[in-house]
């Protein structure tokens, strides 16, 4: 599934308009612990979190993630956005809490494997 389709289906706000959203999403992982994401997220996954600090971009870049979705209308920190653009990591946001957002991603067919 293309990231663009997911953005449209869930009406996600794109926080990094310059980043490439025409990429394939292979699955998704939800966690607010960076160490957990480093251990368990896979290449091409979308990551759902409430963390907004700079290090989320480093983790996404390290793991080759397709993008990050921030829940609860969380606003990424300024340096996070800057780094995301440098690393070409799309960051999206949603007003939904994690539980609701993840349910909808599951319904779209995304899995965590």
């Amino acid at each position, binding site marked *: 599934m293309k990231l663009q389709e997911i953005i449209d289906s869930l009406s996600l706000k794109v926080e990094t308009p310059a980043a490439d959203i025409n990429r394939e999403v292979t699955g998704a992982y939800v966690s607010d*612990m960076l*160490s957990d994401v*480093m251990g368990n997220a896979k290449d091409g996954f979308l990551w759902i979190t409430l963390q*907004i*600090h700079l*290090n989320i971009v*480093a983790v996404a870049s*390290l793991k080759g993630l397709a993008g990050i979705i921030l829940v609860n209308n969380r606003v990424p920190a300024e340096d996070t956005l800057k780094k995301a653009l440098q690393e070409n990591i799309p960051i999206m946001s949603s007003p939904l809490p994690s539980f609701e957002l993840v349910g909808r991603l599951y319904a779209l067919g995304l899995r965590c494997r």
Partner: protein
Amino acid sequence: MPVEFRADLHIHTCLSPCSELSMTPGRIVARAAALGISIMAVCDHNTVEQVEVTSTIAKKRGIRVIAGIEINTSEEVHILGLFGKLTDAFRMQAIVYEHLQLGENDKEAFGPQVLVNENEEVLGFNKRLLIGATDLSVNRIVELIHGFNGLAIASHIDREGFGIIGQLGFIPQGVEFDALEISYRADREEAHTRFRLYRHIPWITSSDAHRLEDIGRSTTGFVMEHSTFDELRLALKGAEGRKVIF
């Protein structure tokens, strides 16, 4: 007669992946000297390997370096451990290394972890995932620091990411911090209201510098007889005429 010493007790060197390469021990000391800082703690992420060289250089400039480490707990809370003896700091490091998340540092993602000598020459790179978390809880890390005669300070409690209040929502009962660090970003008055529950613990502020220009952007005054670790402990306790000026 106790006098006031200016202290910056949270400085990273180029061994921390997120620090700038210019954070070499020599340049850090030169900058601290220019700013009139008389005590500094080198607190790299999950390692103490750059403390000794910094201390050697600092001694020549009359600056005291305290052996420190910024440990990442299993809850991803940052805690500073400060030690009076380098051997105790290395004992702490051995446990941190044993419990640190496995994997090698990816310098493209997190930045290089550079070990340098007194002459600013690169000695090598630390390969561990220093940015990672240990599998030890806040409670355990504080116990361990105390077990090695150290001081345990909760890092930047006003920060949402990696601060104890941001991660846990509160300071758990039974965790005995020797001090709480308020970051340079915090508005002091707001901090007094927001953290009023924790006024019984001494507060300090420090730079958490990752760049040379950040050193000393926030410092704490310690009224003490000498610029030693034991005196810092007394000042934090408010004992024998020593005190902390926040």
